[in-house]
C-alpha cells in the first residue's frame, strides 16, 4: 500500500500545502511518494525529497506542465496511478481542479476536503459549510482524496532523504492553453499558511478605508489580510482574500475579525483558528459566539489603538 501525493509547487519551490498533504498521506498507512510535475522543476523535486516521511519523489518535466493545466497534470498522474492505493492532492485551487479529473478517469469516487483519516478507507469531511461532519467509507480500491490542509499538521520540510526518480512526461494533451495570470505580489504571508490573519468586513466602508485601517495592523503583526464575502462583494478587497465556505479555509494561530458580523459561511472558513478575536460594535454580532476575545468597539478607533499597543509592547 503506497500513497502518492501530488506536490503543489512553483517549479522553484514546494508550496506549504504539500507538507500537510504528506501528513495525511502518511496516516493512510503505507509509504509516501511525491509527484513533482513541472517545467525545470528540479529544485522543487529536490525540496520534495527532503520532506520528512517521503520515501520516493517522482519528477516529470515538460514545458506543458509549467502552469499546472488540469488536463496535462491529470494525464501525468494517470500515467503512474497504477502503483498507488491512495492519490492525494492538497484542497487548493490547483488540487481541486485536477483531482476529480483523475478520479473520473479511474472510475472512482473522490473524497473531497478530508479533515481526518480514520482508517485507510474511512475519512472525515465537512459538509454544509462545516455545519456537519460526514464520516465516509470509500468503496473503491483506489482512493482519490483532496486534503483540507488546516486539518493536518505540516510534515517537516527537511530531514528526509528520498531518492528522486525521473519519470517520462505524459504527452501534452493540447486541450487548453495558459494565457497569463495576475498574482498579487506582496511580502505578506500566504493567507492559507499565515500564523496571524487580520480580516476585515463590510463595516470598513470602502476600499480606501480597508487598506488604511487593516494594512498597518497586518504590517505590525506580520499577518496576512483576509476579508468577508460582504467586503469582497462590495469591492473593498480582492476576490482571493475571501475567507469562508467558498473562499479560503484558514486556521491560523490568531484570527482577528474586524467589522465582520459572522455569517455561517464565513465561520466555516475560520472557526478552526486557534485564537479568534472579534472587534465589532454590534454586541449581537454572531462572530462573538465563536470568539475567544470579543471587543465591543468601533473598529476605526480600536484598530489604530491596537496597532499602537502592539507596537509599544514589541
Amino acid at each position, binding site marked *: 500500500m503506497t500513497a502518492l501525493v501530488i506536490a503543489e509547487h512553483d517549479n522553484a519551490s514546494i508550496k506549504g500545502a504539500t507538507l500537510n498533504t504528506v501528513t495525511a498521506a502518511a496516516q493512510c498507512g503505507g509509504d509516501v511518494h511525491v509527484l513533482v510535475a513541472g517545467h525545470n522543476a528540479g529544485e522543487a523535486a529536490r525540496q520534495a525529497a527532503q520532506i520528512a516521511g517521503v520515501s520516493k519523489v517522482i519528477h516529470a518535466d515538460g514545458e506543458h506542465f509549467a502552469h499546472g493545466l488540469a488536463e496535462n497534470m491529470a494525464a501525468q498522474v494517470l500515467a503512474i496511478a497504477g502503483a498507488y492505493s491512495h492519490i492525494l492532492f492538497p484542497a487548493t485551487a490547483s488540487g481541486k481542479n485536477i483531482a476529480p*479529473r483523475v*478520479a473520473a478517469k479511474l472510475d472512482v469516487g473522490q473524497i473531497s476536503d478530508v479533515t481526518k483519516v480514520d482508517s485507510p478507507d474511512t475519512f472525515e469531511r465537512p459538509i454544509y459549510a462545516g455545519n456537519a461532519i460526514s464520516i465516509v467509507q470509500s468503496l473503491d480500491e483506489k482512493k482519490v482524496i483532496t486534503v483540507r490542509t488546516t486539518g493536518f499538521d505540516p510534515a517537516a520540510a527537511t530531514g528526509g532523504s528520498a531518492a528522486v526518480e525521473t519519470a517520462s512526461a505524459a504527452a501534452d494533451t493540447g486541450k487548453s492553453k495558459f494565457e497569463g495570470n*495576475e498574482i498579487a505580489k506582496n511580502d505578506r504571508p500566504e493567507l492559507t499558511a499565515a500564523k496571524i490573519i487580520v480580516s476585515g468586513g463590510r463595516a470598513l466602508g470602502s476600499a480606501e478605508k480597508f487598506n488604511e485601517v487593516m494594512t498597518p495592523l497586518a504590517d505590525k503583526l506580520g499577518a496576512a489580510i483576509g476579508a468577508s464575502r460582504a467586503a469582497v462583494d462590495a469591492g473593498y478587497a480582492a*476576490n482571493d482574500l*475571501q475567507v469562508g465556505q*467558498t473562499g479560503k479555509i484558514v486556521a491560523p494561530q*490568531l484570527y482577528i475579525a474586524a467589522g465582520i458580523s459572522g455569517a455561517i459561511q464565513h465561520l466555516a472558513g475560520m472557526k478552526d483558528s486557534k*485564537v479568534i478575536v472579534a472587534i465589532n460594535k454590534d454586541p449581537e454580532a454572531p462572530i462573538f459566539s465563536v470568539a475567544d476575545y470579543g471587543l465591543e468597539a468601533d473598529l476605526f478607533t*480600536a484598530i489604530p489603538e491596537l496597532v499602537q499597543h502592539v507596537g509599544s509592547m514589541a
Partner: protein
Amino acid sequence: MKVLVPVKRVVDYNVKVRVKSDNTGVDIANVKMSMNPFDEIAVEEAVRLKEKGVVTEVIAVSCGVAQCQETLRTAMAIGADRAILVETTEELQPLSVAKLLKALVDKEQPGLVILGKQAIDDDANQTGQMLAALCDLPQATFASKVEIADGKARVTREVDGGLETVTVGLPAIITADLRLNEPRYVTLPNIMKAKKKQLETFKPADLGVEIKPHLKTLKVTEPPKRSAGIKVPDVATLVAKLKNEAKVI
C-alpha cells in the same frame, strides 16, 4: 451553439441545517429548497451568452427527485429555453451525476457546458471536472470571466493568490465561481412563461447509466462546538490577554 447547464436542488443557503439525532444525515424534511447558488450563476451566464447572440439554445438539466422540476422551472424563468430532468430517487454522488450528464452531452452535442463550481450541500467541487474527464473535453474551472470567440473560450479563473487566464477549444466544460455575474431577479411574467416551456424526463436507465455509490456514509455528526470566550473592556486588555494568556503575539 447549444449550452447545457446542469442545476442542483439543494437546501437553501439561508437554512441552518441540523444533524439528525440518529446521525444518519442532516434533517432536510420541511426545509426550504432552492437552486444551488453557483448553478444560478451558471444559468445566468448561459442566458447572457444567448442574449449576446453567441449561443442559440440554453438547456437546463437536473438529476434527482421529481421536485427538481421546480429547480428547472426556475432555470427556465431566468431564461433557459427548455429543460431535462433525469429522475431518480437513488442517492446521486458526483461521479454518477457526471455519467448522466455525459450521456446528455452525447445526445445533445452542446458547444459548452456551464456548471456551478460546487454545490453548497456536499461541498464536493467535483462534477464539472469529472464530466470534462468522461467527455475527454477541456475544462476551465472557477471562472470569473468568460469570452467566446472563434470557436474558443477565453476564461479568467480564480486561483490562489489572484487570477489566471486560459483558452480552451470548444466544446468545453466551464465551472462558475462566485463573481462571474450577478444573477437577475426572476420576474412573475417570466415565471409564467417558464411554465409553458418544454420539460423532458428520463430515467437513468433510459440513458444507459447505472447509478452506483462510491462512498458510503457511515455517520454524520455535529462539528465540535466552539464556545464563546470572554468580552474584553478595551484594547489594552485585549493586547495583554493575547500576549500573556493566549501567547499568540
